[in-house]
């Protein structure tokens, strides 16, 4: 075997070694004590690989992914971590610096709009998800990728996916506007803009209305709207009712949608919307309790 052949073989072995030896590490995890990583008890810190299952008991976990996203998994929480997402199975996590990263839980996807966005996201009860945005803004999507809510900094919302039978139900409230023959409405709770189709809409333009309808998944919405809703009922509501006492309507809607958000979880509900088959309620209390919005009172139901 001549020297040239040996050099070729050496280079090949090196390349093979690097390929075999290249670890699938996606980040690091650190804690003040022990935690569970892929079912094993690990002390202080560890390496995350694709699909790693991390679980906390009493302390918090800090996750730093190579992509830049940072997570703080709170006590009594569990999640499966991938390079571009986490599936939250239990508890609560803080998500920050998460450009290109998202969280999945309860069939919902929570993703930041901007890199500076920070949110506390947690599971509530058996079927709700809470998103509390501290900086920036976050988008919440349903299983079909339909935008369910835009959550801005300083606000918190609770979400509850509805039963499959009610998945297309939409119940939104806002001022109806017209653009080039298309009717648009931005929901006051979810801040989602939808295109509304149906009879008698022209007469309601400029008014605050409560629209109940079904999502038309096959239709392409006009620019500025994320989805098309075929209205089955359009009711005018007073501005005061829309802003303050819509809770009644919301509660009714929640009832219609399957006893949705609001009841008995220690959060206050101002109103409830249903978008893309997901009941969404703006909540108070969480941010006020954390001190982010001092002076804001909460009124638990």
């Amino acid at each position: 075997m001549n020297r040239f052949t040996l050099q070729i073989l050496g280079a090949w072995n090196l390349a093979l070694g690097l390929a075999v030896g290249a670890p699938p590490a996606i980040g690091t995890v650190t804690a003040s004590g022990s935690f569970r990583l892929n079912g094993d008890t690990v002390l202080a810190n560890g390496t995350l690989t694709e699909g790693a299952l991390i679980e906390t008991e009493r302390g918090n976990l800090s996750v730093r992914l190579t992509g830049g996203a940072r997570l703080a998994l709170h006590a009594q929480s569990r999640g499966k971590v991938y390079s571009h997402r986490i599936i939250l199975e239990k508890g609560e996590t803080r998500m920050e610096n998460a450009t290109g990263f998202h969280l999945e839980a309860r069939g919902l996807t929570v993703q930041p709009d901007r890199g500076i966005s920070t949110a506390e996201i947690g599971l509530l009860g058996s079927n709700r998800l809470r998103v509390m945005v501290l900086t920036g803004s976050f988008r919440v999507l349903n299983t079909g990728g339909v935008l369910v809510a835009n959550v801005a900094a300083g606000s918190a919302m609770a979400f509850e996916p509805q039963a499959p039978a009610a998945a297309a139900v939409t119940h939104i409230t806002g001022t109806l506007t017209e653009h080039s023959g298309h009717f648009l409405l931005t929901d006051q709770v979810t801040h989602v803009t939808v295109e509304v189709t149906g009879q008698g809409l022209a007469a309601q333009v400029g008014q605050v209305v409560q629209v109940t309808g079904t999502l038309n998944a096959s239709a392409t919405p006009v620019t500025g709207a994320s989805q098309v809703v075929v209205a089955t009922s359009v009711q005018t509501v007073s501005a005061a009712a829309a802003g303050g006492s819509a809770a009644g309507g919301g509660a009714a809607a929640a009832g219609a949608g399957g006893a949705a958000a609001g009841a008995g979880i220690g959060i206050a509900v101002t109103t409830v919307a249903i978008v893309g088959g997901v009941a969404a309620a703006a909540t108070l209390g969480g941010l006020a309790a954390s001190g982010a919005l001092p002076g804001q009172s909460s009124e638990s139901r």
Partner: protein
Amino acid sequence: MTFVVRPLLLVVLGSAFFLTIGIAIAEFDFRRNPQSMLHSPSWVRAANWARFESPPDQLHIAVSLNPRLASAWMQLGLDAEADGNLEEAEMDLLQAARVDRLYLPSWTLANFYFRRGDANRFWPWAKRAAALTFDDYRPLLRLADVLDISPEKVAIRLGGGAPLLRAYLDLLINAQHPGSARRIARLLAAHHDPADRDRLAVFADCP
């Protein structure tokens, strides 16, 4: 004899009590004004500066007060790695291992080199961590298993002790890798420990 021991015991307990109070006061002072602590350094106070998720400036103060504070060096190393300063990260982690020859710095360094894909540097630290592991070998074995496809090599490189082989065997059986498990079973059988009879019985009929 009792006449001597009893006062001595009281002195020891009293010292421990005042030390505990001292640590609590130092922590309170530190949380109130971290910079004021610079003028009164002591190893007791330094420990309070190197807590989980402390910012790097506090960690630097902690190691300047007590250069033997391995937890602070490790946190500094992990922070540096997250910021992409790999050279600094390695130096900090190696410093942690110099001042603390127990399990954690070795485990942290093994993980660091694993993430870097540096197998040559991974194995010595992994072996050291394996030698110092007192309960769960599995996290270390999972890393090692990724870096080498030969289970025998993994076992030998990590020291090849019976407790490690047992843990490795159980791991491979649970992961449903019967071929690899059989190879580790042979290594374990060579230790001739009657305690392994049941564990190895599964492989008795295998060639």
